[in-house]
């Protein structure tokens, strides 16, 4: 088979069917951009999980003087030295579960607070004795938080047990929800793309039925007859795939680096790098070529029988 002959056929076919080709390109581009976007979103979530789960602790806040009125658990007043030693001793006994325990005094908590809200009115609104002393417990397995909670919540001198992971979980649930939503929209777009491809190939096969009829009669193989149509769909798909890659790159560029500048506004979040963006390209491109090609060959099996 001569490549030049096939290539010219593809060019003619795509131009003859320009509006349909355009529709295919756009729908493939959008569906695959959503697909790549949701892949990037999962990367983002797991990257944040890796980063934050390493940092988060279970905090056991101890009663301070000021808590006596607001927390019934602290009605007996501030935590005593004896209670503190008992808590520390119990934590040390749970060495199978606990990786590290550190103590944060009110003064240290105050210092952290001041650092975090430097220059805002919040900084001067609080005094050291309003902040609780606490034990910061780092767990070997962050999901075993319940064990610590049941063991220490309600104990004398303990104001509350807080799992910082819970706060993050809400954020991750939100991001995951966005990912799932993107996948649903993608599935819908993909169906539209497939239907457009099927229709485009059908129109294309119909408009060239004279040629294909003659090809059949002189004994061209069905592979030879079908290849231009399949390639046509694949080329349109590839253009869509390249656009999708462009959209993914632009998406990261305008949300993270420039435009929205999220990397400056949300400097606590570690965003995925360009490597992770580019690593989605091969899969996106492969799908963009294979999906239309396979769809086309199924259609042609019906419309270009030997």
């Amino acid at each position, binding site marked *: 088979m001569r490549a030049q002959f096939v290539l010219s056929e593809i060019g003619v076919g795509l131009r003859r069917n320009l509006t349909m080709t355009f529709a295919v390109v756009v729908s493939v581009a959008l569906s695959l951009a959503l697909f790549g976007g949701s892949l990037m979103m999962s990367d983002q979530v797991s990257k944040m999980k890796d980063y934050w789960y390493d940092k988060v602790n279970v905090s056991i806040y101890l009663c301070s003087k000021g808590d006596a009125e607001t927390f019934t658990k602290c009605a007996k007043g501030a935590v005593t030295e004896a209670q503190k030693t008992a808590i520390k001793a119990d934590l040390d006994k749970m060495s199978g579960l606990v990786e590290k325990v550190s103590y944060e005094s009110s003064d240290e908590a105050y210092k952290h607070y001041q650092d975090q809200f430097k220059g805002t009115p919040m900084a001067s609104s609080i005094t050291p004795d309003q902040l609780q002393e606490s034990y910061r417990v780092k767990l070997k397995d962050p999901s075993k938080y319940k064990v610590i909670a049941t063991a220490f919540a309600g104990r004398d001198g303990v104001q509350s047990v807080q799992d910082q992971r819970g706060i993050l979980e809400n954020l991750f649930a939100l991001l995951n929800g966005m990912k799932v939503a993107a996948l649903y929209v993608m599935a819908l777009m993909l169906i539209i793309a497939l239907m457009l491809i099927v229709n485009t190939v059908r129109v294309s096969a119909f408009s060239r039925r004279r040629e294909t009829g003659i090809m*059949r009669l*002189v*004994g061209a193989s069905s592979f*030879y*007859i079908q290849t231009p149509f399949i390639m046509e769909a694949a080329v349109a798909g590839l253009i869509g795939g390249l656009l999708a890659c462009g959209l993914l790159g632009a998406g990261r560029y305008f949300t993270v680096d420039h435009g929205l500048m999220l990397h400056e506004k949300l400097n606590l979040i570690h965003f995925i790098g360009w490597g992770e963006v580019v690593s989605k390209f091969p899969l996106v491109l492969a799908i963009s070529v294979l999906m239309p090609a396979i769809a086309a060959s199924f259609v042609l099996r019906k419309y270009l029988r030997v």
Partner: protein
Amino acid sequence: MIRFDNVSKSYPRQSHPALRDISLEIEKGEFIFLVGSSGSGKSTFMRLILREERASHGTVHVLGKDLARMSNWKVPQMRRQLGTVFQDFRLLPNKTVAENVAFAQEVIGKPKGEIRKAVPQVLDLVGLGGKEDRMPGELSGGEQQRVAIARAFVNRPMLLIADEPTGNLDPQTSVGIMKLLDRINRTGTTVIMATHDQQIVDQMRKRVIELEKGRLVRDQSRGVYGYQH
């Protein structure tokens, strides 16, 4: 070359079969006229040989092969040894005469050098030497049919199937086409021609196969057209 053994063909949703219990044999080098009124089964007969349809009952052998047992991917190979010509020429309007003929060779992957040699040769044979670069629209009906015959013959098929090749042509032009088909037949190619043209059949005195309502009613060597329509 071609053998029909008790061949019947019925199409779905049609009460009467298109062909009923046809048995006949066509030898290499024969010239056959296939006659019969419209709907007598001529087209089905030809479609069975080209394996565009399969027989409902019985077996069709073409070039020694049982078409019922031939797998789909081998069909194109078989068709390369058959040439086909139609009443409506079926040329590609946006290709020149030479390109139309070359198309039949390109799509089966013949090398370019061979095509460049074969196309002028076959155009000379059909009497269109010098008209290589004309478009089909610029040619008369007879000339267009010659292009179609050149395309059917360029791959030197064993069998040429012509479905009313003179149906759209005036009598004088038809005679020219018949002379051409006769010449092709003399090169050893078997020719099967379906026709309604009484004059041609009577003149040529070749074997005549007549179908009526799907039945073989006459198979006569050196026959005449024979029935009034």
